[in-house]
Every structure is written in C-alpha cells, then in structure tokens.
C-alpha cells in the first residue's frame, strides 16, 4: 500500500503568533516552528497502517527551506521518503492554491491512501482534506477517530457533534484524523540516525505542472486587507472563597442578568 502523509510546519502554538506587516502573511520568523500537532497523529496512523498492511510511507510537505526540519522529524518517526515542495512562488498561497499543488504532487507519487491532520493550528480553515479529495476524485474520509482497512475497503469513525458516523469507502481515499485517534510515537535514537539517510526530493511549482498564476500571494483567491492585535480584556473582579464564593458568583450572575 502506498501511503502519503501530508506534513505542515506551523508556528508553535505556545509562542506569540502574528502576521507580517509587509504583506499580511504569517510571520514565520516571529515564532518557533513545529510540525502541526494534528499531523503528528496522521504520521502515526500512516506508520501503523503500513506496519499492519505493508507498504511505503511518503511524507509531503509544502513550505519554505526551514520546513525540512519538520520533514526530518517525520522521517525520524519512521516512513521511507519525503517530497519537499519548496518555491518562493508558493509564498502566500491560499487553500485553493495549496490544494492544487499538493494534489498534483500526490498524483505524481501515486497513492492508495492520503492521510493528513483535520486542520492546521495556524490557518485553521479545515478545508484542505475536502479540497484534496475533490481534486483527486477519491472518497473523503475526514475527521477520523478510527481507521480500519480490510483489503480495499476502508471504514472510519467520522467524528460529529452528535457522536460519530461509521463511513465506508473503497481505496484509494483521503483520510483526515483527529487527535484522539492514537498516541504519536517519539522518534527513537535509531530513527533519528536513519532519517538522515532517507531520500528527500525537492520539487518546485514548475515540477508539479501547476500554473504559477494559481499559487502564491498573487494567485490567491482571497486576500488579507488589514490586521490588528486585539486589545487585552479588561481586568475583572477576583474574590477568594471564604465560604461564600458560590453566593458571590451567583450575585455576579444576577448583576449581569444571567439569572
């Protein structure tokens, strides 16, 4: 089975994240970089499925030079090889442009299964898995909290507000995962050493066959016009509970007309 796992490098959620004043895009220099946390569950699921059913795991990442750190990190968890889509022309791409180049690369690699996190912690649009399924013309099995494969049949639990749906399809498919699906492994020392020898192929937009006009800041179908830091909240009242904390809280709720 050919498994492709998409990996995105994002600013660490613990750090102060902001946009760049010059072009309103993510300020990558302002924050530490990490693998999008939800992608680590995608990596783990890909590795487990390959271990259970045999096959190769290829990581695909679109991002600047620095994203190579995240690719190496993924390879230190396991897997066979990676493709790094790196091109200045991609800077500022929106989800439409990103999904176009990713779909092109994934199509070139060939796949039975594409796995990715259900959303990224920076953009949080949550549209990429659906867009990839649409572009690749394969079933969309998103928000999976469980994945089972039997021959060419794949079944997932798709998380929903009311619980979950059992969803079935035939491979090839796109799967996106939620954080409760597994416990991502830590890279072992052996894994870290091995990752250094695993092949990482670099690709540009031209290599994907996608028209440059579709990607980057100029090709984006949306634009950020302005941004501003939100003002901090006004400090409120804090009381220590000396036996009447609950009563005082109720007083507050009355004063604000909640009860």
């Amino acid at each position, binding site marked *: 089975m050919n498994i492709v796992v998409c990996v995105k490098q994002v600013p660490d*959620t613990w750090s*102060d*994240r*902001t*946009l760049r004043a010059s072009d309103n895009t993510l300020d990558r220099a302002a924050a530490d970089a990490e693998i999008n946390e939800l992608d680590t569950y995608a990596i783990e699921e890909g590795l487990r499925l390959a271990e259970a059913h045999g096959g190769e795991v290829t990581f695909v990442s679109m991002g600047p030079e620095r994203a190579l750190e995240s690719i190496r990190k993924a390879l230190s968890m396991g897997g066979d090889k990676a493709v790094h889509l790196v091109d200045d022309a991609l800077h500022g791409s929106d*989800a*439409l442009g990103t*999904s176009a180049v990713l779909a092109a690369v994934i199509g070139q690699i060939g796949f039975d299964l594409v796995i990715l996190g259900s959303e990224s*912690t920076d953009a*949080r*649009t*949550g*549209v990429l*898995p*659906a*867009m990839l399924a*649409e572009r690749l013309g394969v079933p*969309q099995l*998103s928000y999976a*909290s469980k994945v089972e494969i039997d021959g060419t049949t794949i079944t997932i*639990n*798709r*998380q*929903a507000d*009311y*619980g*979950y*749906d059992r*969803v079935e*399809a035939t491979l090839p498919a796109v799967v996106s995962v*939620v*954080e409760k699906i597994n416990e991502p492994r830590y890279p072992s020392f052996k894994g870290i050493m091995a990752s250094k020898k695993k092949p990482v192929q670099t690709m540009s937009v031209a290599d994907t066959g996608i028209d440059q006009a579709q990607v980057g800041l100029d090709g984006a*179908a*949306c*634009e*950020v*016009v302005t941004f*501003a*830091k*939100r003002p*901090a*909240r*006004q400090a*409120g*009242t*804090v*009381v*220590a*509970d000396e036996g*009447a*904390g*609950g009563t*005082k*809280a*109720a007083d*507050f*709720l009355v004063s*604000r007309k*909640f*009860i």
Partner: protein
Amino acid sequence: MAEILVLADHEGETVKKVTLELVTLARRFGEAAVVWTGQGGEAAKDKLAEYGAAKVYIAQGSEYDDYVVAPKAELLAWLVGQRNPALVLLPSTAEGKEVGGRLAVKTGSGILTDVVGLSDDLTAEQLIFGGAINVSSKVRTGSPIIAIRPNAIVPEPAAGAAVVEPVDITISDQARQARVLERVVQQRGARPELTEASIVVSGGRGVGSADNMALIEKLADSLGAAVGASRAVTDAGWYPHQFQVGQTGKTVSPQLYVAVGISGAIQHRAGMQTSKTIMVVNKDPEAPIFELADFGVVGDLFKVVPQLVEEIGKRTS
C-alpha cells in the same frame, strides 16, 4: 436583486440557530435563498419565512445524508451555475467548511472560514491565532464563499415569502464514494449545542474524574447552558472529544463562559477568549485563566460549585 445562497444546517425539520443567523446576514446583501438538503424542508419553511428567507430550494434526496459532504457541494455548485449568486453563506462548522472547500474547488471561487462579520463591501472579519488578532479579508475571485461562525450574528425576524422550489438533480457516482453506514449518537442530555449556546460551562482537569463531570453538568443545567471541556478532560476520557473547547477543539463565543478547574493554557484560551463575559472558578490564584475573568473565585470547585448551583436554584425559583 441578486440571490444569496444559504446552506441550511438542520436536524430533521428543526432549523439550527446558525441557519437563521445566516438568513439574517444574507438579507443585507440580496435575496436570501435557503438551500435545504434531505427531509424536513416543507415543515421548516415557516420558520425560514419568519427570518426573511425569500426562497427555499429543497433537494430532498437521501443521498445528501447517505454520503459524506460531496453531494451537498455538487448541489451548491449546480445552483451557483444556475443562479449566479452574489454570495454563498455556510455555517462554519466542520461539515459546512468542507462543503465550502469542495465548492471552492468546483467553482474556482475564494473561500473564507470562521468569519464573524461582513461589511457592506463584503470585507470579512476573522479572529486568528486563537482570537489574538483581528483580520479583515476579501475574496477576490468568483462568488465569495463565506463560512460564518455560529453565534456571531444576532438572528432578526423579518417577513419573507419562503417560496419553495424543489431541486432534483442527479448526484454523480463520484460524489457517492464515502457512504455513511451508521450514525452513532452519543447524547449527553438535552442541552444546547456547544457552539450555539449562549452560556457554556466547561470543566478542566481540576474536576478530577469522569463522574465528577456531573457537577459541571448540574451547573450547566441550572443555567440552561451547554457543557464544554478542556483537552485534559477529553484526553483522560472523562468527557467526549466533541465537547472540547480550544485550539484543536471547538471555538465558542457565548454571552457567558464559565471555566471550572481549568488553568487557561494558551490553547484553551484560543477556543473561548472572545466570549462576552467570562467567569472562573480555580483554586490557584496564579492560574492564567484569571487574566480573562470578568469575575473569578479563588477556591475549591467542590465547595464553590455546589453552593453556586444552590444559589442559582434559590434565585430562579
């Protein structure tokens, strides 16, 4: 007047509040044309009329519920082709965004998600990085596809005709690839939905166990609130994941958010810090959640919460 397509979010014939919010917003830009998939549209039409829907397209085939997302996107793409709407509005829920994403690929239009406001020239307001930054964005290609965060718009009644127009298109095999075998409902009592609720009461690790989450539920019920949880709670399996608030959970923006036994890590704040009013119960005065509190009690939740529930009972009876 241009049509504004609004994808209805509904449970059978019950119209979800977010749908009425979208119809209210749509009226500002043109004729609100609701797109209803599956059953219940005829019964719901009066409600939609009350909020000013001019039209209701009803596509009542079962394929919209039997297959994941793709049939709805196909239907919307067909309507976009037929009606050339000025705008397509969707609820910014997991599914709403996915429908929008597929629609964007089909039509080549730009999509903006998690939008909390739209100005007259269609500039969209978003809050990013967990509510730390306000962003104004615009779609510059195609009929804009805008997913609106539930609870961001106040639904306002207005008379509408809600003329029903049945739509019967053939959904392609391509869109019938991910088949729903079974819907597993894990209800936790009849509470309002987390992202739509005007009051949310959330429990954190301080609650201590799955059984103790009953205390949070009790407080929530005394206020008619939804229940939320921190990731520490859902990771421990004390409460289901769909109730998680934060960076990798739901974003809520209720009138009142009550955080009980939650420290206020940046990733939790990401999901609740735009709430209008925030109340906190935590025994650690240094807990960062107090920075957001309009009212905070430093104390043991096992003493404070039962007293609060009792007091609410006294004052509302």
